C-alpha cells in the first residue's frame, strides 16, 4: 500500500500575517499623515523612516554580506549634495531630483568597493571611513557647492507646506518599500538563501557554489543606493546641508547602534532598534554627552554579551517572525 504524500512549502505564519497587516496599516497611515497629523509629527515621521532605512541597509551589509562599514555617511552626503546641486543649480524639480540623486551613491560605491575589497575585515571598515572623510574634505574644498559653508534648498519655497508634506510622506513610503520591502524580497529570493549561507559561514557558502565576491559587490552598491536615498530625503526635509553634517560619522554610529540593539541579521531587528533609538533620542537627547556615553556602553555590552540584540531575546521567548524568510515543508497524507 503506497501513501501519496502531498507536499507544499509554507512560508507565511500567523505572526507574519499580523505583521504584514500592521505594516500596511502603518504605511497607509504614514501617507495620510498630512491630513491628520501636525507638521512636527510629520517631521518626526520623516526622521524615523530615514533611520529605519539607513539601519536596514547597514544590516544588509554587516548582518548578511559580512561587510562592516563605518563610512555609510559618504553615501548620505553625496546623495544629499547631488539633490541640492540638481535642484538649486540646475533647476530640476526637487522631487524628481531626489530620485535622480540615487545615482551619486551608486557611482561612488563602485570604485570604493573595488579599492577596499582588498582589505581584511576590520581594515575594510576603517577603509570605508577614510573614503567618507576624503569625500567630506573634498566637498569642503569645492567652491561650486559653497565649500564648508554648505547649501540651502531655496527652491522649496515655491511649494506650499501642505504640498511639501504630501510629497515627503509619499517619498518616505517609497523609501520604506524599497529598503524594507526590497530586503525582504531579496532575502526570500534565491539570492536570499545565498546571503543567509554567507551570513553563517562565507567559506562554506563559497564551497556550495555561492559567488561570494559578486554578491558582496551587489549588496554594497544596493546598500549605498538605499542609504543615499534616505540621506537625500533627510536633507531635503532639513532644507540645508553642510559637509560636516552630511558626512557626519555619527550617521554610521547611529546605524550601528540601531542594528546592534535591535538585533543584527534580521529585518525585524533594524525596525525595533530604530524605534528604540528614535524614542530614546526624544527622551534623553537633551542629556547630550551623558546620553551618548550610555549609547556607546550599550553597544559595547551587546557586542560582548548579547549579540542577538532585542530581537534575539524575543526569539528565545517564541518563534514569531514578522518577515519570515525560511521555508517550511508541510507534508499532508492523502491515503
Amino acid at each position, binding site marked *: 500500500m503506497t501513501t501519496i504524500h502531498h507536499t507544499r512549502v509554507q512560508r507565511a505564519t500567523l505572526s507574519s500575517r499580523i505583521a504584514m497587516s500592521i505594516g500596511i496599516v502603518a504605511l497607509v497611515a504614514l501617507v495620510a499623515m498630512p491630513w491628520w497629523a501636525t507638521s512636527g509629527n510629520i517631521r518626526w515621521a520623516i526622521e524615523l523612516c530615514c533611520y529605519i532605512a539607513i539601519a536596514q541597509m547597514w544590516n544588509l551589509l554587516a548582518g548578511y554580506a559580512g561587510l*562592516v562599514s563605518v563610512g555609510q555617511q559618504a553615501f548620505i552626503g553625496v546623495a544629499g549634495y547631488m539633490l541640492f546641486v540638481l535642484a538649486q543649480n540646475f533647476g530640476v524639480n526637487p522631487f524628481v531630483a531626489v530620485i535622480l540623486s540615487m545615482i551619486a551613491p551608486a557611482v561612488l560605491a563602485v570604485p570604493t568597493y573595488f579599492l577596499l575589497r582588498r582589505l581584511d575585515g576590520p*581594515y575594510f*571598515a*576603517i577603509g570605508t571611513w577614510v573614503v567618507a572623510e576624503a569625500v567630506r*574634505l573634498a566637498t569642503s574644498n569645492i567652491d561650486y557647492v559653497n565649500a564648508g559653508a554648505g547649501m540651502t534648498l531655496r527652491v522649496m519655497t515655491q511649494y506650499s507646506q501642505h504640498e511639501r508634506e504630501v510629497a515627503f510622506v509619499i517619498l518616505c513610503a517609497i523609501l520604506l518599500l524599497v529598503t524594507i520591502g526590497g530586503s525582504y524580497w531579496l532575502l526570500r529570493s534565491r539570492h536570499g538563501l545565498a546571503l543567509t549561507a554567507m551570513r553563517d559561514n562565507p567559506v562554506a557558502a563559497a564551497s556550495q557554489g555561492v559567488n561570494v565576491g559578486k554578491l558582496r559587490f551587489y549588496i554594497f552598491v544596493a546598500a549605498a543606493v538605499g542609504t543615499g536615498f534616505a540621506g537625500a530625503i533627510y536633507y531635503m526635509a532639513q532644507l540645508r546641508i553642510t559637509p560636516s553634517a552630511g558626512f557626519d560619522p555619527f550617521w554610521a554610529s547611529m546605524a550601528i547602534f540601531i542594528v546592534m540593539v535591535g538585533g543584527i541579521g534580521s529585518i525585524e531587528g533594524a525596525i525595533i532598534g530604530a524605534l528604540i533609538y528614535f524614542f530614546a533620542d526624544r527622551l534623553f537627547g537633551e542629556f547630550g554627552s551623558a546620553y551618548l556615553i550610555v*549609547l556607546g556602553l550599550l*553597544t559595547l555590552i551587546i557586542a*560582548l554579551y548579547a*549579540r542577538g540584540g532585542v530581537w534575539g531575546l524575543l526569539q528565545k521567548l517564541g518563534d514569531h517572525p514578522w518577515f519570515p524568510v525560511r521555508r517550511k515543508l508541510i507534508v499532508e497524507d492523502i491515503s
Partner: protein
Amino acid sequence: MQWLDAIVQGVLLGGMYAQYALGMALMFGVMRIVNIAHGDVMILLSLIAVSLAGVLPLGNVGLVLVIVPIAVGLGWLLQKFILNRVVGADPLPSLIATFGLSIALQNLMLEIWSADTRSLPNSDIASASFQIGPIYLGLLPVIVLLCAFCLTGGLDAVLRYTRFGRGLRAAAADTEAAAMTGVDPKRIYATATAIAVGILGLAAIFAALRATVSPSDGSAQLIYAFEAVIIGGMGSVWGAFIGSMVLGVAQAVGLRIDPGLGILFGHLVFLLVLATRPEGIMARKK
C-alpha cells in the same frame, strides 16, 4: 627649497604618526583586531597627562614615567575585559565592541574635560629649534622621530629574537598550533595590547607637548595610524614606520599647496597605494 622643507617637516610629522601606528600594527598582526578606540585611548592618556601636569610638578620625564605605566595598565584592562571576549575569526564583534567603547570614551572625556583644546605647559624643549643648512628643525619633533625610530627598531628586535616575539609570531600565524606547542595565546595577547597601549602613552605626552588635544581628536589619530599601517604594508613594524613617513610627507606637501588640502592629500595617497600596491610598499614578495 620650500618643498625640501615640506618633506623634512613631513618626515618629522611622520615620527608622531609612527608612534600611533606601531601599536595598531602589533595588535592587528597578532589578534586580527583593530581597536577603533585606539585614538581615543591616546587622547585620554594625553588629557590625563595634562591634568596631572597641572597638579604635580613632575617635569616631562617624570610625566612619561607616570603615564606609560598607566597606559600599560589600561591596555591590560582593555584586553582582559573587552578584547579577550571578542577575539575570533569574525571581525564584527571586536569592531562593534571597540566602536561602542570609542563613542563612550569620547563623550566621557567631553563630560570630564569639556570640548576645550588643551596642551602640556610650554617647556624649553617644545620651543627649541636648530638650523641645518637652510632648514629649521624643531628639537621636539626630532626627539619624537628618534623615539619612534628606536621604538620601531626595539619592537622589531623583540619580535625577531625574544621568546615572547617567537610566541607572538607563532600565535599570529596559527593560534591553535601555537597553543599546542606551549604558547599561551591569552598571555601573548595581553602582553601585545599592553605594549601597544604603552607606546600610546608615550605618544600621548608627545602629542600634548607638540600641539593641542581635545576629546574629539581621537578618530583622526585612528585614521592616520590605520593609513600608515596600510601604506607601509600589513604585518611589518618597519612598514608601519615607513608608512607613517609617507603619510606625514603627503600631508605636509598638501598643506603647502593649500591649507585646506593637507589631510585630504594624506587620504589620497592612501587610496592611491591601495589602488596600485595593495600589499603596501614594504610588503615582502610572496
